[in-house]
């Protein structure tokens, strides 16, 4: 077992070492050495994760400390690992996608002057994400949580000369901080009431705390579990971009495409989903919290999908689809179908990373033009990118036998079986979402890969990546990307097709998550789902007669009709329903509201407190006022010091009289 523990340490430390070498000594060792050392680090981590996965399958889970971070009072805070079946799924997904993204980056960032810095950051991200998922306690979870936020901040602002990038990274960090604010308070309540931040100890005590209440407002009591879970979930809302803290994710597309795939699609944004699944023993104790989770997820799934329909930037279409899919995962959590959420997290990681990297490949092929209105017919020029994109899109919309079908269909079924308040709306949202997803995914697919070749006549647009203005469009034909770019596409396309078929039986209905995820007996959705499950092939065949598939087909068909056959119709709709269009274009006005109300309001209050409080009242009135008062009194007193003896004598006589009067009277 000692051997295995060394291996656990190796998993996060290998990428960390790569990040440090590339980051601190990248200038010395050069570009190639920097990418080799980071790729080696992540590859080691991936291989070690496979070994650990097999060890865990053999029944060896681990829960133990690495070192004591801090002791205070009676409490010890440790850095430690919990290696169980939930952890290993995440480790595999993170290290595999990260490895693919590392390889892809060689091609994508080839001309960038910040090459070493970029590799250092993505390896640092991998380290942070691994610390997050491997943690055995809340505090290390929070460490990883904020550390991935930091790297995300650095990577969104990677091209730091672009105003939009440094606006987006600040926004991402601050919105995430709002979530973390709730998260930290949730952790605080856990510590205050359980006396420990160790998962195992907290989960063991959880059932007896179920009936505890706390009073936050005079005269009102709430279930402790509800308050804790909602606060923790606020953290998840920030990290996993759930409504109304979703606003940072679309802007995060300002970062280079490889990190959009790794951080803002496959791994970091799913940290919130992972966290709630990890906390299933707590969330199961509060139906109110589950209900909130489900409704927030449903709103995100449906309304963010609508926004994908009108985007013209290839990355933003994929970004909104990510938001919507994160909503699906959240809905699954709310339905107590934690294993389904993790299952969808995994399939989504593969096909969404694929879609993003394919979009990046298109961007390279298009000489850094990202506007899908300028593309079209690319399948002739970029065959590998085309086929893999098609696979990713088919997986995303839930085509039977593809990975996304198994996970998404299971979510829909599970929500249908939930009886919590809000489950009706959630069911509607996830079913309607199928149509929307199919529509915008294939709108993008058709506009990019089929139809007329529109490049060479660009629509004026400011969405260029890399700031390479002189490398403009219209110069030459699009071309297929080098093998370092297409190889990861192929490697991700394979699991995007098969992983659902292979994994659904053990992950959802077998005992794979035994012990790692807890579902209360009165939340029977998973159990009922299992009783209806008769094998992966049967599930896919059964779906041929079910509503979601027909909705998806309708979505694909409609987008084909609109964008391939009759492009005048969407234009006409845009004119006819200009109000709705402008609401969607302004993303429901969240950005404007936040800028005006929160950013503007904070500055306004700050300026008021400064000028009014500090400068006028405290300094103006009290401090300098006191000084003036002293000056004024002394100027008065100075009047008495005339220098004439008779003035002093007169004052003395008056004084003597006054004193005698008082003395005699007394």
């Amino acid at each position: 077992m000692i051997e295995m523990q060394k291996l656990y340490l190796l998993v996060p430390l290998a990428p960390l070492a790569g990040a440090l070498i590339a980051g601190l000594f990248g200038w010395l060792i050069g570009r190639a050495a920097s990418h080799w050392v980071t790729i080696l680090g992540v590859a080691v981590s991936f291989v070690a994760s496979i070994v650990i996965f097999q060890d865990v399958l053999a029944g060896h889970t681990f829960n133990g400390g690495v070192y004591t971070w801090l002791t205070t009072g009676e409490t010890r805070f440790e850095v430690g690992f919990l290696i169980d079946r939930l952890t290993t799924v995440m480790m595999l997904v993170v290290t595999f996608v990260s490895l693919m993204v590392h390889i892809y980056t060689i091609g994508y960032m080839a001309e960038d002057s910040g090459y070493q810095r970029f590799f250092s950051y993505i390896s640092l991200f991998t380290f942070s994400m691994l610390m997050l998922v491997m943690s055995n306690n809340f505090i290390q979870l929070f460490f990883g949580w904020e550390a991935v936020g930091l790297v995300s901040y650095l990577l969104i602002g990677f091209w730091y000369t672009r105003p939009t990038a440094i606006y987006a990274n600040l926004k991402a960090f601050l919105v995430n901080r709002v979530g973390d604010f709730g998260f930290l308070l949730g952790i605080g309540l856990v510590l205050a009431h359980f006396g420990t931040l160790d998962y195992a100890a907290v989960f063991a005590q959880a059932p007896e705390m179920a009936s505890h209440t706390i009073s936050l407002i005079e005269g009102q009591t709430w279930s402790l579990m509800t308050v804790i879970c909602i606060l923790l979930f606020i953290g998840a809302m920030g990290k996993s971009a759930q409504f109304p803290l979703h606003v940072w994710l679309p802007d995060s597309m300002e970062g280079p495409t490889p990190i959009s795939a790794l951080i803002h699609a496959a791994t970091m944004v799913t940290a919130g989903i992972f966290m709630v699944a990890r906390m299933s023993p707590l969330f199961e104790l509060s139906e109110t919290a589950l209900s909130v989770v489900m409704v927030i997820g449903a709103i995100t799934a449906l309304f963010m999908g609508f926004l994908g329909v009108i985007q013209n930037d290839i990355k933003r279409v994929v970004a909104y689809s990510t938001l919507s899919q994160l909503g699906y995962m959240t809905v699954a959590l709310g339905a107590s179908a934690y294993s389904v959420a993790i299952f969808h997290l995994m399939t989504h990681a593969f096909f969404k990373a694929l879609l993003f990297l394919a979009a990046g490949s298109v961007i390279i092929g298009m000489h850094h033009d990202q506007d899908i209105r300028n593309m079209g017919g690319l399948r002739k020029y970029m065959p590998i990118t085309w086929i893999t994109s098609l696979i990713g899109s088919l997986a995303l919309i839930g085509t039977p036998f593809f990975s996304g079908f198994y996970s998404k269909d299971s979510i829909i079924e599970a929500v249908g079986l939930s009886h919590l308040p809000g489950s009706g709306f959630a069911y509607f949202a996830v079913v309607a979402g199928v149509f929307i997803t199919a529509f915008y995914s294939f709108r993008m697919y058709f506009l990019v890969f089929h139809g007329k070749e529109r490049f060479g006549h660009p629509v004026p647009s400011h969405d260029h990546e890399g700031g390479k203005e002189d490398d403009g469009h219209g110069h030459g034909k699009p071309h297929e990307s080098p093998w370092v770019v297409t190889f990861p596409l192929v490697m991700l396309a394979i699991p995007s097709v098969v992983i659902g078929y292979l994994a659904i039986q053990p992950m959802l209905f077998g005992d794979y998550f035994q012990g790692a995820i807890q579902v209360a007996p009165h939340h029977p959705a998973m159990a009922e789902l299992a009783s209806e499950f008769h094998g992966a092939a049967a599930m896919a065949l059964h779906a041929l007669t079910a509503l979601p598939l027909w909705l998806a087909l309708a979505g694909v068909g409609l987008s084909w009709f609109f964008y391939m056959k009759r492009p005048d119709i969407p234009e006409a709709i845009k004119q006819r329903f200009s109000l709705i269009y402008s609401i969607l274009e302004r993303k429901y006005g969240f950005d404007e509201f936040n800028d005006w109300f929160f950013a503007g309001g904070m500055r306004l209050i700050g300026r008021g407190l400064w000028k009014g409080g500090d400068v006028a009242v405290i300094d103006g009135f009290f401090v300098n006022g006191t000084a003036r008062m002293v000056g004024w009194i002394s100027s008065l007193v100075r009047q008495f010091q005339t220098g004439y003896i008779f003035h002093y004598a007169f004052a003395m006589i008056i004084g003597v009289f006054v004193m005698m009067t008082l003395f005699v009277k007394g």
Partner: protein
Amino acid sequence: MFSGLSLLSLVIWVPIVAGVAVLATGSDRNAGLARVLALIGALAGLVVSLPLYTQFDTLQAGMQFVEISPWIETFRITYHLGVDGISVLFILLTSFTTVLVVIAGWKVIEKRVAQYMAAFLFMSGLMNGVFAALDAVLFYVFWEAMLIPMFLIIGVWGGPNRVYAAVKFFLYTLLGSLLMLVAFIYLYSKVGTFEILDFHRVSLTMTEQILIFFAFFMAFAVKVPMWPVHTWLPDAHVEAPTGGSVVLAAIMLKMGAYGFLRLSLPIVPDASHALSGFMITLSLIAVVYIGLVALVQADMKKLIAYSSISHMGFVTLGTFIFNAYGIEGALVQMISHGFISAALFLCVGVLYDRMHSRMIADYGGVANTMPKFAAFFVLFAMANSGLPATSGFVGEFMVIMGTIKINFWYAFLAAITLIFGASYTLWMVKRVVFGAVANDHVGKLADISSREFLVLGLLAVAVLAMGLYPLPFTEVMHHSVSNLLSHVAQSKL
């Protein structure tokens, strides 16, 4: 190497003697010699401080390295020194910071070099004296004496408005500490000695306690500084030279909070409990109100000064919630803030030396021309925002965890710093460091020299080490803090 008996005396007097030696080099013709002597003196001061940590017995709650000898026997005033887990780390911080300040001022200060360096060495010894003194008069003497070099540093080497700032600083803090002296004399009349440890044991009525509490409050709240007696700090920082700001933020502010822990809490525990709501309220105002004020500052030094006040709000909050999380968190926060604020003021100093401006609007895109500097600046900004794995997180985390046990809404308000702290710090970073090169001056900036790299690098290591492994810091304080807590829990009425 050093006998335990005289270690604390060495810590106080080595820098002062070195300061005299530096002063003896005289005019600026010998500036080079003055610098070398100052560095030797500062390093010697650090070397004699280190055994305080290595030989410190973490299992003992009481005073260690105690020295006592009569001083003014008529009033039973003694030269009494000693440190416990609460004070020992501050001495190390002071000696460490002095070395940094000497290196940081190496090239920057060109006029009256010897006097400048000597002032910092004197100040180092005097501040160590405050943390080591166990006799109230001795404490008071060190406390007031350290104002003089700081007053001179601001008044002589400061900016254009230095006289206003220096006088404001001096009067503000002097007026506060006079009341402390009154309280000491009153306590002397009750106890018969000026021993601080005897003061801890004397029983006092509630009225006496309340009056003494406010006398101390006037002295300490100004130093911390707590809202609303904080307005001297931004002015002092803006006018002070970089080294002055560093010492002011890193150490001098800690005197106030140290005073609360060493004097207010143990001498007047009942009043401290009774007035804890008042203190918590002021602390939370500091965190929230000052956080918002920091957001709209156009001057980098003012912004960091306000950020300091906001962070010190955590210190006073932790002090007055009376649990181990709070007090240890407050101590950790003080040490951490010593590193981070020093680092941020040094960063602003690096920019100011090149551009002669502290205005955020004059910068933009510094990362293009100063990438190494930008990396340091972003790291320290993140630490200032309380990012986990930096020291800035540890203290805030402990205080928030301690506060939530007392009252959820206090913790709620305190935790707002997560948002505000990140907002004002990173917004500044965005406008200064990131973006395209804003003007020709930024375009001509040269990246940090190896001397600047050394100073910022040492602080970066300190910030990360304390964030990743704070245990060695808290281990030192455990027993003294739990001793203090049990003392404070006993009524003196």
